[in-house]
């Protein structure tokens, strides 16, 4: 047992810190539209050119082929440097790409992974449907094999960034005769194909974060099927385990900086009764101490899951806990921030550097996205604790 990193790891940390200090963009990240994609892609490209993209990705796919520990160190330094949120590249870089390194064919990997790392390809997830969310296996979007193509018809929803994405990785029903979980296929679809309509949906946080995607006999090469026809459930579970397990590592690390920023805010504002500092109010202090502690616990949990990953080679279902823990902590942070700001903090401010109300509203999504809190608790109850279904 040892908390200390090896001298080689520490050297890597220093190099990362040096590079980030001079390369992190200082302009605020645009919150929407093509400008956002341009910003996200340019920053990813810069990391790639600097030799820092895909720290734990295999070298044959353009990554650095380093350990998860180095990936963690990179995220820690990234957060320390105040580097921008990964934004529209989240799905491709943080878990879609990694899923392809496990489940994809060499041709699929060569076609997409280097482009993802260079920031040239934006992916969006197409799992949920209007009639299938938490009950994912109830999805109805059809994929019919026709020669060497899959003809896709149906509707996907809640697809983040689909309006600016290049590819939509979807779960579609290719064999309605089989039991529900056994007739699904995971397929990567070019969003510019004929027969696809993307319609952004406005959120309560007032941004166009996610979309509906309509499929009307869109033709997709069979070569874009990942993991084989009718084997989509397994690929989807592998994708979701990565999403819940390691994709949020950067968010876990950066959460502590956000808490620290709110504590600084509370130290510079008057308390709710107009006397003293907000930080000295017993209720505020208690909330902030809880958040600071939870931030530390998220780091400790990350260290534990990385230690496990280094020993066993794969993230386990306990990732559901991390996702849930972080999501609920972000919601409590939003509530605490509204308490700290009080009546002067009710203006809607989208960008968190300038206020907290947008953060508060945005995190209502954190117990829904990547699986609802209820589904995550089912996963923990059934797959970790072994409770009956």
């Amino acid at each position, binding site marked *: *047992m*040892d*908390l*200390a*990193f*090896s001298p080689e790891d520490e050297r890597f940390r220093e190099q990362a810190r040096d590079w980030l200090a001079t390369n992190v963009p200082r302009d*605020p990240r645009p919150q929407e539209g093509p400008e956002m994609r341009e910003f996200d892609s340019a920053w990813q490209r810069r990391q790639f050119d600097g030799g820092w993209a895909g720290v734990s990705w295999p070298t044959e796919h353009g990554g650095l082929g380093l350990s998860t520990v180095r990936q963690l160190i990179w995220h820690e330094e990234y*957060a320390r440097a*105040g*580097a*921008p949120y990964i*934004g529209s590249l*989240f799905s491709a870089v943080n878990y879609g790409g990694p899923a392809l390194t496990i489940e994809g064919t060499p041709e699929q990997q060569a076609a997409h992974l280097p482009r993802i790392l260079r920031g040239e390809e934006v992916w969006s997830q197409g799992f949920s449907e209007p009639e299938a969310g938490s009950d994912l296996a109830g999805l109805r979007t059809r994929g019919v094999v026709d020669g060497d193509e899959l003809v896709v018809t149906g509707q996907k929803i809640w697809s*983040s960034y689909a309006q600016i994405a290049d590819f939509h990785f979807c779960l579609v029903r290719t064999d309605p005769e089989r039991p529900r979980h056994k007739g699904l296929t995971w397929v990567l679809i070019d969003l510019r194909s004929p027969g696809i309509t993307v319609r952004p949906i406005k959120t309560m*946080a007032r941004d166009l974060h996610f979309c509906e995607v309509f499929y009307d006999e869109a033709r997709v090469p069979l070569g874009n099927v990942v993991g084989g026809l009718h084997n989509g459930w397994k690929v989807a579970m592998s994708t979701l385990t990565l999403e819940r397990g390691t*994709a949020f590592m950067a*968010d876990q690390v*950066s959460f502590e*900086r*956000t*808490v*620290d*920023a709110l504590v*600084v805010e509370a*130290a510079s504002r008057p308390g709710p009764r107009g006397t003293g500092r907000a930080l000295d109010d017993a209720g505020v*202090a208690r909330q902030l*101490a*809880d958040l*600071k*502690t*939870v931030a*530390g*616990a998220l780091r*400790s*949990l990350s*260290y*534990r899951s990385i*230690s*496990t990953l280094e020993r066993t080679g794969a993230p386990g279902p306990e990732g559901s*806990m991390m996702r*849930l*823990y972080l999501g609920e902590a972000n919601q409590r942070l939003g509530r605490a921030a509204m308490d700290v700001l009080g009546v002067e903090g009710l203006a809607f401010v989208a960008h*968190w*550097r300038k206020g907290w109300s947008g*953060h508060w509203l*945005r*995190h209502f*999504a*954190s117990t829904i*996205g990547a699986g609802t809190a*209820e589904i995550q*608790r*089912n996963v*923990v*109850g*059934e797959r*970790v*604790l072994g*409770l*009956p279904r």
Partner: protein
Amino acid sequence: MDVLADADQAEITALAREFLTERLGPDQAHAVADGRAVVDAALLGRAAELGWFGLGLPESRGGAGYGLLEEIAVFREIGRAVSPGPLLPMVLAARIAVLGGADSQAEGLLSGTLRAAWAEPVPGAATVTAERVSGRFASFDPERADVLVVVTPEVAVLVPAPDGSAAVPSVDPTISTLVAELEVAPLAVLPADADPVYLRGLLLSAAALVGSAQRTTEMAVEHAGTREAFGRPIGTYQAIKHRCADMWMRTQAADAHLVYAALALDSGGKVEADLPGLAHGARSLAAEAAARNGEAVVQVHGAMGYTWEHDSGLHIGRAEVLRRWFGGPAADVDAVLASVPLSDPRTTISQAGETP
């Protein structure tokens, strides 16, 4: 970097569990609670033979030469077993005596022949210095104690135990308590700059709380998987399943943070960290986990969980006592917030917190 238990620690855990299950577990705790048994000198002598009271002390000073993580492994088990008896006060008293150079007490404490009890300063009503201990203190199991242990962030001392016969049963039916005035000079003194005994003790208490939270989670999961209602195991219902998931999650977070804090403290400053903030944070998570899990385990068991015979009440009482030591929840809030760098400009430039 590797924060998982190694083979040595796993073995210590297994040995501790074996001893506690047989000699100092829930059965004995119930016996003590019923007045059918006491934790006597013989039993403390057995724990001493296992080396528990000097586990984290150097071999050259009569200890076993293990680190804080091994002590934590033992105290997690003590918490799981809701062991009766003054085990935490004994370990801390031995450390204060040995490292503070109080040789005559050291030998008795390491061998279990001298008995220690905890005395917690009542906030705002007590003063503890290397020269004098005075004011109001809540002591625990003071009846048969030879010395009282008083530990503050600045200094740790042993004082002669006064007459404790007026002690009454506490919310933990295995522990008695007495709130009384003390005015006495220490027998042994260990300043914080000589040894972080306060932080070590805080983490050992957190370990016992984590152990309790682990055990109550297991109890709830086991019951939820077997007890049937409306023709199905109650664990199939989300109201129960999700409660169990939350119990497990709280416990995991508390345990991971406990290990992180202990490794940081044990690194002797090599790992850059605010140790008081970390240790109090770990304790607050552990205390919350134990207390909330105590509520949950009763609810999952229904009326059976509310009975005197059930272990739930032992865990609930123990958690409520332990979480009040070392300054209680208020000390956690203060230490954790003191660890935030208020002047650090870097805290204002991160762009985290957007929802993917």
